């Protein structure tokens, strides 16, 4: 389903991205090539019956929910304690501030400023540790330049219709009869509204799920040509029960983290989407 050429430029309308394989856990790069963090989580928003990907979260607030059990809770709890505001939520970079999605996610200057406002540890170490070592250079930097005007607008607020990708990943998938079909492994989205030089917004098209999560992020389930041969054969066998189903054919219960596949749906292997 992925395009044969390397993804250059922002995705054209209709281009399909597997969010876990192609976006999540990717390096975020600023306009001058500065490394700004990882895409630790994605923000999903229900809008007029569609599910849109509107932004991403970088940092422990986004990473915590994706780590297992108590480790994840600890990461989030420690991170919250170290923030100044009591009930802080992670900062969201809107996809309108993303210029390109390739081997890295390239953000615009605005995206860089939003990310810089969330880099507490970096700023603390810069101020209290590294700048005190003789020979520290590069202090007057662009990251701390102009503060983001509308900071509050970039905070993720949990609420009806607003979700994180981690709420969907790993959710149980059931058939209409209640039979367990596995867990959500990847989310497929397409670019709908590229604005100017930005990615804009992605619309979720469907979900991949299956009983075996092992190796599901390696790309063998999404890309039928991914080599080498031995691993391709091995993972095809391992993931032969994996299925892709369009979003219209499922009902997502966000509270219980259960996805129910409608009886009319015809799930296919991800290679046959």
């Amino acid at each position, binding site marked *: 389903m992925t395009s044969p050429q390397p993804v250059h430029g922002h995705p054209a309308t209709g281009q399909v991205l597997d969010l876990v394989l192609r976006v999540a856990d990717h*390096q975020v790069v600023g306009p001058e090539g500065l*490394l700004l*963090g*990882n895409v*630790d989580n994605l923000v999903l928003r229900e809008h007029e019956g569609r599910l849109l990907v509107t932004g991403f979260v970088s940092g422990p607030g986004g990473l915590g929910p994706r780590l*297992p059990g108590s480790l994840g809770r600890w990461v989030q709890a420690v991170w919250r304690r170290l923030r100044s505001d009591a009930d802080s939520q992670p900062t969201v970079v809107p996809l309108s501030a993303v210029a390109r999605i390739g081997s890295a996610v390239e953000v615009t200057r605005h995206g860089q400023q939003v990310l810089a406002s969330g880099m507490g540890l970096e700023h603390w170490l810069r101020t209290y540790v590294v700048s005190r070592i003789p*020979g520290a250079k590069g202090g007057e*930097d662009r990251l701390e330049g102009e503060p983001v005007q509308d900071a509050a607008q970039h905070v993720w607020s949990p609420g009806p219709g607003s979700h994180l990708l981690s709420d969907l990943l790993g959710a149980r998938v059931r058939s209409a009869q209640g039979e367990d079909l596995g867990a959500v492994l990847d989310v497929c989205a397409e670019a709908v509204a590229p604005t100017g030089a930005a990615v804009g917004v992605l619309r979720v098209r469907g979900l991949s799920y299956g009983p075996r999560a092992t190796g599901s992020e390696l*790309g063998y389930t999404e890309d039928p040509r991914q080599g080498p041969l031995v691993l391709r054969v091995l993972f095809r066998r391992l993931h032969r029960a994996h299925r892709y189903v369009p979003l219209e054919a499922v009902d997502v219960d966000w509270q219980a983290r259960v996805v129910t596949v409608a009886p009319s749906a015809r799930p296919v292997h991800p290679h046959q989407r």
Partner: protein
Amino acid sequence: MKKLFALALGILTAIGGFVDIGDLVTNALVGSRFGLSLVWVVAVGVLGICVFAEMSGRVAAVSGRATFDLVRERLGPRLGLANLLASMAVTALTLTAEIGGVALALELATSVNPYLWIPVVGAAVWLVLWRVRFAVLENAFGLAGLALVVFAVAVWQMGPDWSALWNDATHPSVPGNESLPTYLYYAVALFGAAMTPYEVFFFSSGGVEEHWTADSLRTMRANVFVGFPLGGLLSVSIAVATALVFLPEGIQVGTLGQVALPVVLELGKIGLALALLGFFAATFGAACETGLSVGYSIAQYFGWQWGKYVPPLRAARFHTVVLLSCIAGVALLLTTVDPVQVTEYSVVFSAIALPLTYFPILVVANDRTYMGRHANGRLANTLGTVYLVVVIVASVAALPLMLVTKAGQ
């Protein structure tokens, strides 16, 4: 002309930078106990590191992503984190061994107790990582490491029976006084010494530091396919030298001083001076590489700014990690562990941890969305798959062999 010079410099530093404390100690020890019967493992390991480094260097040049970046991306945050912890434990152990190795080399040169040297060395390593430019760091220690050629010269001077040596190396058999599990344990150790994970962390991140692009692939391949095998020959010459001197006497090499002895016997003071310079450069250079690798890998997992190509204040988290890892290495050594033993364990744990990073790189080197026409071809995939099996076998076999042989006793 300038290009040719740059190419030659790259190859020379690759040769001199290939050997580290793990190669020194393991090759000398194996030479003194098993003669040339394990040289084949060095050959397998050197080809393996060539395959691995070429893939990761190619991915870094084409996509701009270094090793741990890709580990996180392809294994996800959970498995990636477990991988990070294991790989960093091994790399920190290797850093400890390298700092210890520098202290031992300085002890041989000055007769000052190594425990006095250890904090000095740790501070010096950190200072170099803090202040010295990446290219200078890489080239200076790589070139000085070439002094280890004295081992090859010493072997030449001894005038051994070359056909007998060749026969020993090509018809490997377990020596009469050693058991098969011990033989296999040292095979795994030698393999881990040749294919150490940090070498690839450093190589791929170094590619990003030096702003490689797809145009750099030719130079990168020359460094790998010419430099690494010649570096491997240097390590073999150490094994041959100790085999010629110690094997007939039944002496097992246990200190860095013994490693240098064959050179002293043949070449005298000048040989000793060069051997010590080689030891110092090889271990100090590798200490810098491992120290950086700890910082690179942790920063890449979390997406932090890393590297010496930005001013230090831009990469505060990275430089803090590097500083802490130098302190941790010194602290571990000051518990009075034997650096030679730390080295012996670090190479075996390297072999255990290797598949964790090898596997994701093999997968990404095949991803045509990133790599386009630079994705693995048939040869790279055949070798890549064969070595996937080899690294998994070595990794799985390492712990049982360590337990059965009581770490090779």
